[in-house]
């Protein structure tokens, strides 16, 4: 039972990342009709916003320490951090420690800007082209973004830790009547889950309860009619692209302490996120979120050693097997609407 609880928590955690990425993908597809294969790269860019913020906050200048030598026998140049120069040792250390949460503030405008540049600079030229063209160009863009990151940050993952105060463990077992330390779970992963849930709720609330959101939803349902009413739906859809990029970006920022960012991160998540979108139902926002959590939990259970030892390799294919089964039973996905991607 303890393992079941842990794997449900793992699944919710992984599922919340799937849900956030799939939510953005669905927003872009639903509004602009674009199949954005660069969305995983936006998640990766978000994670690297955390890396960059961390590096900026850890900027330092060298001070020669004559008492020590470097690997070549020369006097050692010691790094002295600017934030500690400016704010004192303790405050400077605290600022560097909270780099990841601070990165969220930086990532939102940065990712909206990246999304805006992507949409205005490249993707808008492909609105009227077939989906295959859109896939090719966005996939190419994802490769370029990955290679740019690799050029500047290398190929190995870069550790980006959570703040010390949120790096501990929560003793879940005690809540369920187990002894101490029977079920411990990393605190940051719980933070990630609640953060994701908040973002998802905020996006739904924005679409549901604001005039802007209402227009966007109307445009998603019938773009032509909304246009005939004199509303410039294109501008709103461009904003939605930026919003989707920001959602993917902050999902990436918060995920950086869970899995160290690497340039391959975008591709790792891309295919699975598309499966999530298809299983949820093309164009369905609640479907994307539901499928994200369902597939995340199933994947976690399939990775349990007892299951892997029984069915070797099942952890690598389970999502696709479940996707096939769901699509056979419900060809439009869990919450898909009639007429979407069916022309």
């Amino acid at each position, binding site marked *: 039972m303890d393992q079941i609880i842990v794997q449900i928590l793992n699944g919710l955690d992984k599922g919340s990342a799937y849900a956030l990425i799939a939510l953005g993908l669905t927003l872009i597809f639903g509004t602009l009709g674009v199949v954005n294969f660069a969305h995983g790269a936006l998640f990766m860019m978000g994670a690297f916003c955390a890396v960059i913020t961390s590096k900026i906050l850890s900027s330092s200048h060298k001070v020669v320490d004559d008492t020590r030598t470097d690997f070549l026998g020369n006097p050692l140049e010691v790094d002295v951090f600017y934030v500690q120069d400016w704010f004192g040792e303790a405050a400077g250390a605290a600022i560097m420690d909270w780099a990841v949460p601070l990165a969220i503030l930086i990532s939102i405008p940065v990712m909206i800007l990246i999304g805006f540049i992507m949409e205005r600079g490249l993707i808008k030229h492909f609105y009227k082209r077939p989906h295959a063209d859109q896939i090719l160009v966005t996939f190419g863009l994802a490769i370029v973004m990955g290679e740019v990151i690799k050029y500047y940050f290398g*190929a190995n993952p870069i*550790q980006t830790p959570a703040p010390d105060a949120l790096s501990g*463990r929560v003793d879940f077992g005690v809540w369920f009547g187990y002894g101490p330390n029977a079920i411990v779970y990393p605190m940051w992963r719980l933070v990630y889950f609640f953060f994701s849930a908040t973002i998802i709720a905020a996006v739904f609330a924005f679409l549901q309860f604001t005039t802007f959101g209402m227009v966007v939803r109307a445009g998603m349902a019938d773009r032509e009619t909304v246009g005939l009413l004199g509303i410039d739906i294109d501008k709103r859809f461009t904003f939605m692209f930026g919003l989707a990029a920001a959602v993917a970006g902050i999902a990436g920022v918060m995920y950086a302490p869970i899995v160290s960012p*690497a340039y*391959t991160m975008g591709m790792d998540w891309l295919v699975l996120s598309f499966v999530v979108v298809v299983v949820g139902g093309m164009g369905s926002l609640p479907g994307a979120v539901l499928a994200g959590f369902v597939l995340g939990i199933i994947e976690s259970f399939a*990775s*349990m050693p*007892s299951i892997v030892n029984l069915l070797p390799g099942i952890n690598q294919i389970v999502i696709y097997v479940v996707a096939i089964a769901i699509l056979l039973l419900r060809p439009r996905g869990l919450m898909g609407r009639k007429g979407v991607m069916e022309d």
Partner: protein
Amino acid sequence: MSKSNFTRRGVLKTGAIAGAGLTLPTYLRADGHTGFTNAPGDSEVVLGFNVPQTGPYADEGADELRAYELAVEHLNGGGDGGMLNTFSSKVLDGTGILGREVKYVTGDTQTKSDAARASARSMIEKDGAIMITGGSSSGVAVAVQALCQEAGVIFMAGLTHSNDTTGKDRKANGFRHFFNSYMTGAALAPVLAAQYGTDRKAYHLTADYNWGYTTEEAIKASTEAMGWETVNSVKTPLTQTDFSSYIAPVLNSGADVLVLNHYGGNMINSLTSAVQFGLREAQANGQNFEIVVPLYSRLMARGAGENVKGIFGSTNWHWSLQDEGSQAFVRSFGTKYGFPPSQAAHTTYVQTMLYADAVTRAGSFAPCAVAEALEDFEFDGMGNGKTLYRGDDHQCFKDVLVVKGKENPESEFDLLEVVEVTPVDQVMYDPAHPQMGGADASLGECNNGA
């Protein structure tokens, strides 16, 4: 009336045959004259450096390439000469190899066997490379070694740690300087037993490919011989990034040691997950829970950051070694690039020097002559003490370093500390050892090419 023998069809046929002859790959033309693949001309010789320039091991690949470039510089008489000054064999004099200037071409293995074979083939057939070297993955090394065997060129393996490279998949044209999984187990197990006791229960997470299997097998065999018990071993996909599902069950599995048979990004992420789940502070079976990483690299340790502190593992070489050869290499590399070399850089530099030395001692570039010069060659001054290139399996035998993550690093490079230099005798094994393919494993015949 005279009749001409020239017909349109005849001219076309002759032209086609002549054209095909002229465009034959370089190595086939050379064969006709010298009896071996890609015989060099009088002025230069081309070496092929086949490293991962993209993919998960690209950082190791980049460091390997730096070392190759340094080796070429030293062979051609540039720089400070590096290990040429400390190498026990004194036949290399900085005038290239057998008087020919050393040139090189590079290929990108992408850490994929098929891509690595394609780039090696291209370097042999199009660029005329007489020797192929490189690799940061055992799967790639085994695949490229087999290709070099077929093509009739020497393969000097780079970073490859799987037993199979010089075990069941050994080849007469292939040579490895780097240590292997068996040696890691033989060196690490006694240190682990001394540190953590003999009453331990281990849980293995193993990368699901060639290197992972042989490392798990080696560590299991050596730790079980010390009294440890293996409670479970689970294969993890090479593409896995989030290891939480694999790590979560470990604490309640009855194990008190987690062995991470992972390398590169896999190791960074699995260790991070293990630390997140509190394994390093946990207690199991009345003892502190421990984590072991059999194969370490400094580049990997840098990625894992604070998490590596106090964790034991093994490495082929480390820049902090104080012997003359290591110091000479660190000085050359550090002066040129501004940071100390990795173990991947060290092994590739040494392999290039050993190849050049073997050619010079043999007086020939013919692969079989070079192989004969390398077999059972004993040398020193290359950073690992006295070393033997054993003729039976083309594996180098030398001391093995047991290291642990340094508790108080003094610089960004100062991440590992050497806790024991395991003498070579302790890591020696029979060429027909079961972990090495048993009695069936054979080098086969040396191949000079068509």
